[in-house]
């Protein structure tokens, strides 16, 4: 039984099927990536799993508690970092955490110790007494992650945790996520539309598009599904080598372009020595070897027939930022 479990989970917004009969089984302790483009239904799924939205159909359980019938038990065992910021700008970082700790019923001593601890985890101890309105985007994100952890949740939901952050800050957040998964042992359910993010962080990835889950597996298995890796070999005499390689059972295909061979194999890194051995046997000297791994982008392309819409994502981000600025006081 998974720590997060969904069966036929569905949400319809007046006629629009945002989430379409999805099944999920997230195992305790893993980082589960939920990868999909804008409008795929990631946030809607998180909102249903975190009791903020009623499913139209289907059911879901967190730690065995039913999200529809036992919402308060579910709320007690989850931490959530929403896609849009959910901090109080007029309070300090510490006060935001203290507010949360009290809402979750922590005692005074417990509260102080735990707030110190989570602030240290995201390197914000020195900023604790600063008003959140003076925080940068990355600091806000970190503070929200820290807040999500305060009450020792079993599952931490992160909805696009690095959306709108620069590359460096994004990397830093990744390290925090890995650290908290390891140190706190908390299961992480993370949505993203960044390929590298899903790839780097997740033990397993589910690819979602138009509300449907297209594939669930470890990133490397997903990539292997593509038909393995490409080993590009530069050599003095490609023709006999190509012919010999085509006869090997573990080679899926060979293409020659000038002095280079593109060799399609599974688990490329293990096949490089064999390729070299074949070349040596034929007396062909190898000048260079390049291993190209397929990316999740290739996997996504394979399943959906299109590239993930990063440009569209950026447009949405800009709109959101503009809307936020408009409401700022």
């Amino acid at each position, binding site marked *: 039984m998974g720590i997060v479990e969904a069966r036929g989970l569905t949400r319809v917004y007046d006629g629009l099927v945002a989430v379409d009969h999805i099944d999920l089984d997230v195992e305790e302790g893993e980082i589960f990536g939920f990868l999909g483009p804008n409008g795929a239904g990631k946030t809607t799924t998180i909102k249903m799993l*975190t*009791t*903020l939205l009623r499913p139209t159909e289907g059911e879901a359980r967190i730690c065995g508690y039913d999200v529809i019938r036992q919402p308060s038990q579910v709320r007690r065992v989850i931490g*959530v970092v929403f896609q849009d910021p959910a901090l*109080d700008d007029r309070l300090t970082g510490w006060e935001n955490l203290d*507010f949360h700790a009290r809402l979750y019923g922590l005692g005074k001593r417990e509260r102080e110790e735990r707030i110190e601890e989570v602030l240290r985890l995201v390197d914000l101890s020195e900023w604790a007494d600063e008003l959140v309105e003076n925080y940068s985007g990355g600091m806000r994100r970190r503070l929200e992650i820290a807040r999500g952890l305060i009450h020792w949740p079993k599952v931490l939901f992160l909805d696009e945790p690095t959306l709108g952050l620069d590359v460096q800050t994004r990397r830093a957040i990744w390290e925090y996520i890995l650290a908290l998964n390891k140190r706190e042992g908390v299961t992480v359910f993370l949505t993203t539309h960044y390929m590298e993010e899903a790839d780097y962080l997740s033990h397993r990835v589910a690819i979602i598009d138009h509300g449907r889950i297209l594939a669930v597996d470890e990133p490397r298995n997903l990539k292997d599904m593509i038909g393995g890796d490409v080993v590009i070999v530069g050599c003095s005499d490609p023709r006999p080598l190509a012919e010999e390689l085509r006869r090997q059972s573990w080679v899926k295909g060979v293409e020659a372009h000038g002095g280079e061979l593109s060799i399609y194999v599974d688990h490329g890194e293990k096949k490089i020595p064999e390729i070299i051995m074949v070349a040596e046997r034929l007396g062909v000297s190898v000048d260079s070897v390049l291993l190209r791994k397929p990316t999740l982008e290739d996997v996504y392309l394979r399943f959906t027939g299109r590239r993930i819409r990063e440009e569209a994502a950026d447009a949405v981000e800009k709109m959101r930022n503009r809307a936020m600025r408009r409401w700022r006081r």
Partner: protein
Amino acid sequence: MNSAEIQAIYVMWLRHVKRFVRARSRLIANVIQPFFFLAFLGMGLRPINFPGLPSGLVYLDFLTPGMIAMSVIFSSMFAGLSVIWDRQFGFLKETLIAPVSRISIVIGKTLGGSTVALIQGIVILIAGMLLGARISIPGTIPAFIFMLLIAFFAVGLGLSIAVTLKDPDVFSLIMNLLMMPLIFLSTAFFPLESVSDWLRTIMYLNPLTYLVDGLRGFLIGSSSIPLVVDLSVALGLCASTTVLGAYMFSRSEA
């Protein structure tokens, strides 16, 4: 009710009050308008004798309770606005997802909004006294309680309106288009006895009339309507909007 719920009420209250204390410009803006009315209308119209003004009292004495009621009502209703802001800034989700009952959250918000409103009402009271309004000192104690009733009513009303809205501008519009006329037609500015019959009928239908009149009864010892009636209406209004606000809020989605 267990300690977790009580702590939730406390923390909702604490946040409201903290935000208020930090937003000094808001405090000044909220207090300045009734203060100007008191200073300019109250002082300017001092020599005029309104029909219906109890003997021995001047216009400033009459106006001060009205302005207190007005500032309490407005500042309480802004507790509703804070829900819209919270929704706009996403903070509402943080409270909706907490493992405490929505009722506790509403109670905390109501107490927070009322505390702030009471403080503003007291500021206006002191301002009125400094300008020379004659206030019954023993009357201030029941008046504070009455101010709290007014605050509960207005917070509940504000919350009920706010949870149905997404746009803070619409809320401000409602405040100006609905609440301002109601305040003007509530005896806050002129006595029931000084107006024509049809206007008086409208004022009798306006629930705010009873709130303003009751407060005046306690503060200056003279009301146009029996205090028992004012008090009963206030209690009824307060109970109904509080329940309505709690109900509306408990059903809201982030």
